């Protein structure tokens, strides 16, 4: 937990993925993207726990999508990052950038 908004690392990742997926930000796609991009397996239990938490904090919102009869008529939710969510991410980024400032050489040098 860190920053003003109390944004955890996994929460941050979820928000970023939701932004990247844009119109395709449904729960399975979010899970896929997390596994693919971040190479991190995630159960639906963990994912929903995080999504619920982000929603309760007001950083995430969802719209119902029209059910597809070919999918048994099951509806799904399309997630989107709220203005508060974006602000929290921006906050987090500037904190990190401040901390990164001036230590790139150290980090890069060690890596080389």
């Amino acid at each position, binding site marked *: 937990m860190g920053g003003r908004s109390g944004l955890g690392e996994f929460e941050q990742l979820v928000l970023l993925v939701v932004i990247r997926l844009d119109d395709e930000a*449904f*729960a*399975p796609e979010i899970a896929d993207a997390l596994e693919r991009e971040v190479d991190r397996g995630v*159960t*639906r*239990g*963990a994912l*929903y*726990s995080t999504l*619920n*938490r982000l*929603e*309760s904090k007001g950083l995430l919102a*969802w719209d*119902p*999508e*029209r*059910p597809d*009869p070919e*999918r*048994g*008529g*099951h*509806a*799904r*939710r399309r997630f989107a990052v709220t203005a508060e969510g974006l602000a929290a991410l921006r906050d987090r980024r500037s904190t990190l950038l401040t901390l990164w400032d001036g230590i790139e050489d150290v980090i890069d040098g060690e890596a080389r």
Partner: protein
Amino acid sequence: MSRRGWARGILRRTLADDARGRAIRSELEREHAERTERDGAGAADGWLLRQAVSVASWSLRDRLAGRPWGAPGAPLGPVRATRDALRSLRRAPGYSLAVILTLGAAMAATVSVFTVVRGVLLRPLPYPEPTTLVRIDGLYDGVPGEGGIDYPAVLDWREGLDGLQGIAVWSGAEGIYAADGVSEVWTGTSMSPELLETVGIRPALGSWYGPGEGGLNAMTLHLSHDLWERRFGADPDIVGKTIRLSDASWVVQGVMPRGFVWPDAETQYWIPLRDSRFLSSRGSGFLHVAARLTPGTSLEAARAELARFTEQLRAEVGEDVRTVALRSVAEVERAPVARALWTLLGAVGLVLLVACANVSGLSLARTETRKEEWSIRVSLGAHRRHLVAGLVAESALLALAGGLVGLVGALAGVRGLVALAPADLPRREAVAMDPAVVVFAFAVSLLVGLLAGLLPGLRAARAAAPGVRRSRGRGARSHRTHAALAAAQIALSVVLLMGAGTLLRSFARLNAVDTGFRDPGGLLVAEIGLTDDRYPDLAAILDYHERFLQRVVDLPGVESAGLSSHLPFSGSRLEAAMVREGQVFERGATPIIGMEVWNGRYRETLGLPLLRGRDPRRDPSGQEAVREVVLNESAAERLAPGGDVLGLRLSFDVEPGEPSSPESFYEVVGVVPDVLSGSLEQAATPRAYYDIQEFRRTYGFVSGRYFYAVIRTRGDGSGLAPAIRDIARELDPGTPVRSLATLESLVRRTTVPARFRTLSLGLFAALAVAVALLGVYGVMAYSVATGLRRIGIQKALGAPAAEVGRRVLLRAAAIAGAGAASGAAASVVLAPVLESMLYDVPARDPWTLAAVLALAGGGALAAAARPARRAARVDPMRILREE
């Protein structure tokens, strides 16, 4: 149990039955269905069980950490509901705008008329205990007129009636105020001393008359607040001071408070009743009477007592005792306008109903498109309560916005209505928008908005079920409801159009009536009041007349001028029973003829040709009496039906059963055409015209001290008014000219009530028609838009474009036909409401009905033209591809 069954059991126990829980279950089921298709049932079932276990463990973890899953955000409070409703309405700007404008226009009309009705008809009159204040008026042909009571009757009533107290009388008065360089005529009231106390309004300055004060001919007066401010600079010490009025001195007794308008707003001063020989004669009724019901007496009881008393008196005194009507003051004041105003309120009620039907149609269409959204929301766990709360918020928002638009529109509407209203609209000053009107406006618009906006939605929301509701062709039932709503709008509009149409025809007929005057726009009419003090004898009067006429005729642009004892186009002020030589007077059988006295070239100026005979002569020397009279056609017909009236000798010096004196006979020397007298709706009355010199020499009086000059001008005469005022001022500053107007404007003034009714009802009808046609357009456009697939199939199956378009038009015609038919039936039933307001047009006028039906049908087809074109142009391939 299968793995899938286990998984579902776990999920059901773990996830709450709320929005979030149902959403998660739905999403897992959906993914499970996809995986079944892709990886096979076994793998998918295994996956589902694993996820169910993880969901169970994570939700348990979160619950232990104090973060239970089942808390789907804040409950839907009013603020949130309003915000959601605003967002949802912003996404449907066309719908929102249509509802707001429809409601707003109808509300503007309703609130305007309600404001006027409230001010004029509903507010209590501004007198203490207004319900006990009554008036007594004479009956003319069974209809109560204004005034017409004689003084002896009043004295009898004061003696003999128990149900009435404070019986007070008044009549009109006029005074010429000439001081400090101003010269003007004041309209006043001469009254018995108890009048102000009976009405119950105390003077703002000074006092009522005490016992023994203000008797006949007392030289005291009360001033109106307005006159006191305007002419006396609101002098606080005015009481007790002396004012010169009509060459006499008057002591100011008091100043009446602002807004005191008894008997009318024109009255500027009040003086004690003047004694005259008319005051003591029974049957010469020229007084108005006001009184208070004694405590405990009902209006009906007082009426019955007065009727009994009148019968008794007639048995004792004879036929001269007049039949009278006792009415509450509210009834007297409101009677002339009540019917028109209630009718207008009914009319705007219909406009409101049209708007209601329209908004219902709009929200029904919107509901159809939202059913799907609602099904999703329900399947995602939204409670129906939330859907309903959202609907209520939306409807209320739209209704309030419509009410606001209506209020703003009504600000202008009220002003327009009052400006359009006849000059004698009572309580004009009480017509104002106040908090009560605002409350009324919002209450009505909320009611309308909720009824029309909410009901269709409510039904749909209740029916919204989770699962698929892929509605392509909308239900036939909803189409029928739409069509019925549109037909109802057409029906209501036809009723309004029918009313407006008959009024319009009646108004046109009224304006086409020939008054008998030639070119009344080029005739200027001026009133000249000569006081007895300054002009005591005939010579003085004739001298003034001659000088006045000479100066006027010398003005450039004036063709001729003349004078009469009567204002042209007005009722007769003097009438008498006339007998032919050899006949004796017989009550009821002897014709009553109006008498008018002329001077100068009056007949030529009015443009009345001599149909037969010649003008009456005048003896130039003034010594010999020439007794000659000219009759109008009506009088000639009454006195010598079918025969020749020239040479007939007439007398109005009659006594029942006795022959008239030989020297009282006048010889008929000419006949002129009829002219109307005071109303376009009533036939001309019989009139006899005398030369002023000969008439006055015989009878020693001319009816009244006032003369009316008529001046024939080239072109529009109104520009000459200032020059004529100047002439009067130069001739005698104590004799001002007043009420200068063209004869045409005097005639037009009598049509103002008809114009008011016609214009206002016409406006409301136009509004209703516009809304109704929009409604038809909406229904047709909606039906085409939602039936694209059906239309596409029809065309693909070979239906020609023209046929498809024709079907749309036929449907519109059917809707319009059904609406117009029920509207026509309703108009026939409602027709009697307008009966008394029509002139020479039947309330069920078939021509108007035909025109209205043609208009409604044509309008509906025009409104359906665009949707029909759209249907005709549907490309079947594109539609089917989209499917």
